[in-house]
């Protein structure tokens, strides 16, 4: 018999609606689990037991009144870079360590409207800049499968909390792989939706043209429920696409026979990790068994993705993070000499090393005399990468590839080698560059028991196809059912 905290949203929803359990009980179970495991993991920046129990009680009233939806009463953890009115949104940065959001992000409003229960905010790389959740001002999050390992980043807390049963589902944000990588490293299911599907209003910007909010869950079913909640037009976000999204749950359990998956040559030629190669080969067999055919294809500009990304994202970040200046909110240095020095010292004290590195890189790439060689060049490469995907999807329904070139690595292993750290995202970054939906699903484990995920990439707004593929895969496999030994 599973504990409450081990159950999925769909299972809990059934128990809640049939009044076998109350949301307050579920929430207490989660809070107790957090209490028991948080010291080891450090998934959260802020845990909000009072708010959670209050919301749970309200959810129970809605359930009694018969006005509950499919997610009413389900506990969720929210990445620390999304605004929840009245809660701190620190982005795991000293510069926002005392910032209390005066408004709700659009996704948070949707979560409230659905009657979900907010457990707190999750740890992350500072301003979502990182692949390991080590750059957090609040200290690193540990991988629930192996406490010496990183959980992936930047949404490491969101993935770790779901893997460890601290939250049923969570919200992450993904700019270059920040949902998919930690989902892969923690053996949970996560999706970065198409750019423009989920409102960014209230998501603290890292790189605005690449950032996208998405859910992390135990399986494709919960993910589909969350996509139903999150996707939709928001007039507060000019980049939000006005369109009707399908009922994603209607794609669960649908056969995938006859579909074609693309295998990009360039993704596989990068693979030299035997565990990842084996997991990919195993996954291929599962899909073949489900009647899927494969086609090899080419994404010729894949190799330039990281270089272009590390120009575009820091350029946008250098501008997005300019507002943290100690004038209106956030940290302000105590000792300074005049206005400019106040800015410089406030920001030097408030930002960590990786954030400063990216601000400098982006400032450089946009500065007079370098714009054409860097920003403009990268923006053109982005066009080529996008065109590569467009032609790839002429021959396949979705692309199957790894999430990362290796299983999780050790805490501290790459922290002082920016380029090695950046290369972790080689398979995820191109998806953001093209604005495509990408999903990470548990694919198995390395010889040492570390999670390895698979990535599925679909054309714009074809999230439903990813749900369908993942649901079919998970019906045949049990990787997603395994829980970390905590």
């Amino acid at each position, binding site marked *: 018999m599973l504990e409450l905290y081990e159950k999925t949203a769909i299972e809990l929803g059934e128990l809640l609606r049939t009044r076998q359990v109350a949301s307050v009980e579920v929430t207490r179970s989660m809070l107790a689990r957090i209490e028991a495991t948080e010291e080891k993991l450090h998934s959260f920046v802020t845990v909000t037991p009072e708010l959670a129990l209050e919301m749970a009680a309200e959810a129970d009233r809605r359930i009694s009144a018969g006005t509950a939806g499919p997610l009413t009463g389900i506990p969720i953890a929210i990445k620390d870079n999304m605004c929840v009115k009245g809660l701190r949104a620190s982005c795991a940065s000293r510069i926002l360590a005392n910032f209390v959001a005066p408004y709700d992000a659009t996704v948070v409003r949707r979560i409230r409207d659905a009657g979900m229960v907010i457990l707190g905010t999750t740890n992350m790389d500072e301003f979502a800049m990182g692949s390991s959740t080590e750059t957090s001002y609040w200290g690193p999050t540990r991988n629930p499968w192996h406490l010496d390992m990183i959980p992936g980043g930047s949404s490491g807390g969101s993935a770790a909390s779901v893997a460890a049963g601290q939250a049923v589902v969570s919200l992450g944000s993904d700019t270059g792989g920040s949902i998919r990588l930690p989902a892969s490293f923690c053996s949970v299911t996560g999706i970065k939706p198409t750019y423009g599907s989920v409102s960014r209003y209230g*998501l603290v910007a890292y790189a*605005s043209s690449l950032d996208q909010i998405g859910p992390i869950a135990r399986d494709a079913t919960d993910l589909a429920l969350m996509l139903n909640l999150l996707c939709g037009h928001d007039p*507060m976000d*000019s980049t939000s696409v006005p369109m009707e999204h399908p009922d994603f749950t209607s794609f669960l359990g649908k056969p995938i026979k006859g579909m074609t998956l693309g295998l990009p040559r360039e993704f596989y030629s990068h693979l030299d990790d035997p565990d990842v190669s084996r997991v990919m080969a195993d996954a291929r067999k599962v899909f073949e068994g489900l009647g899927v055919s494969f086609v090899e294809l080419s994404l010729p500009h894949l190799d330039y993705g990281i270089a272009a990304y590390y120009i575009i994202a820091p350029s946008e970040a250098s501008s997005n993070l*300019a507002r943290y200046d100690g004038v209106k909110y956030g940290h302000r240095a105590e000792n300074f000499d005049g*206005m400019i020095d106040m800015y410089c010292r406030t920001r030097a004290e408030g930002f960590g090393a990786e954030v400063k590195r990216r601000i400098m890189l982006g400032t450089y790439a946009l500065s007079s005399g370098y714009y054409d060689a860097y920003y403009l060049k990268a923006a053109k490469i982005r066009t080529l990468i996008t065109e590569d995907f467009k032609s790839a999807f002429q021959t396949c329904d979705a692309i199957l590839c790894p999430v990362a070139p290796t299983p999780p690595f050790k805490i501290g292993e790459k922290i002082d080698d920016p380029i090695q750290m950046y290369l972790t995202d080689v398979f995820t970054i191109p998806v953001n560059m093209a604005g495509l939906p990408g999903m990470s699903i548990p694919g198995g484990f390395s010889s040492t028991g570390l999670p390895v995920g698979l990535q599925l990439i679909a054309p714009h707004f074809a999230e439903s196809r990813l749900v369908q593929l993942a649901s079919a895969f998970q019906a045949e496999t049990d990787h997603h059912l395994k829980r970390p030994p905590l």
Partner: protein
Amino acid sequence: MEYEAVIGLEVHAQLLTDSKAFCSCTTRFGAEPNSNTCPICQGMPGTLPVLNRKALEYTVRMALACNCTINEISRFARKNYYYPDLPKNYQISQYELPVAEHGWVEIETAEGVRRIGLTRIHMEEDAGKLIHDEDRPVSYVDLNRTGVPLIEIVSEPEIRTPEEAAEYLRALRAILVYLDVCDGNMQEGSFRCDANVSVRPVGQKSLGVKTEVKNMNSFRNVQRALQYEIDRQTEALRNGEPIVQETRLFDPTTGTTASMRSKEQAHDYRYFPDPDLLPLRVDPELVERIGRDLPELPSEKKRRFVEQFGIPPYDAAVLTASRELAAYFERTLELFPKPKAVSNWIMTELMRQLKGEEAGLASCAVKPEQLADLLKLIDAGTISGKIAKAVFEEMCSTGGDPAEIINRKGLVQISDSEALTELVRKVLDDNRGEVEKYLAGKDKLFGFFVGQVMKASKGKANPQLVNDLLVQELRARSRF
């Protein structure tokens, strides 16, 4: 060697929308500091901009009135610089692809009408306000103005003199005000101007090194600042000193400009497309509709006034300075069709009452109907022009009807020649010495007699009749 100046102006005009450019806060002026802000215009983490449709429509209106080409697709860009009144530390503006380009406006110069080319008109957001403490080394930030929509109108470097610059600004302001897209208030900063100035030897094709002059908050100060800067640069060139490309602040108390030597000079704005906004498309149908609905513009109206009413160009320029004033003139003219008389009265008496502010017209107690009535009374000889001025003042303060005021105060003009002949004779009898001198050839004394008669009549005598009678009576006395 002779030198000539080359001046280009950058004008910022606040648009008269109700809400801000990218959020729904009010644009109302004068509220308590930071009472008109929201997470978006405060640049709170996570907030995003959504464009105000009215701001675009007003921009297009101005652009069409200035003969610009509207770019169907344009792009918002971020202009990055740190300043405490700019909460995001970047300004949403337009850079490579502005909404409008290649326009012109007409100005009057000594040599006649000239066209000044416009390089571009683009949309952007205003910054907040800084108040500097008099005693302590601190400044205060008020973000109420932050995010108010602005257009920046950039002229070609085609202006040659400070007078032309002022003319150009007047023309732009008149158009903005006519279109109801900006209130044109320079003191409150809803109409602001920066200048790029360089000087070169007459005949030289290439441009000299330019300076940017800021902080000129009136037409007069624009002229003073430009004249100072032109003289300064000319002097420097004559002495073989180089001109430094820099920003200079005008000081209205000394009438001079001085270099801004702070670190903020190191401007490198790092423009790039704003990823929070998609490309801006201006629907050609919208452009057509706005073009169709454009009102008659000041220069067109001026031309028509001269042609249709035969008034001097100067009068026409004054009367068309605002749409309301021009309408006032035309309405009065419908009721009293003597253009020069109406024009004179509006330009002198009415403008004096309004203290030169056309904006006061709406609240002025004297409506065109009453002014026309007054002018009719003068024309009919019921009152003299001088009395009329007093009546007009009374009308302005009480809003009364001219005929009623004249009756009540007993101001009806004396046009009874018998009564006046008596007065004239009395004046001449009382001033025999002067009459003799006059008859001996001192013609100038005629005015003296007129004055004495008017005085004796308490100003109510019909001046024309007094003239006639005096001529008649003096001639009679010369026969003796």
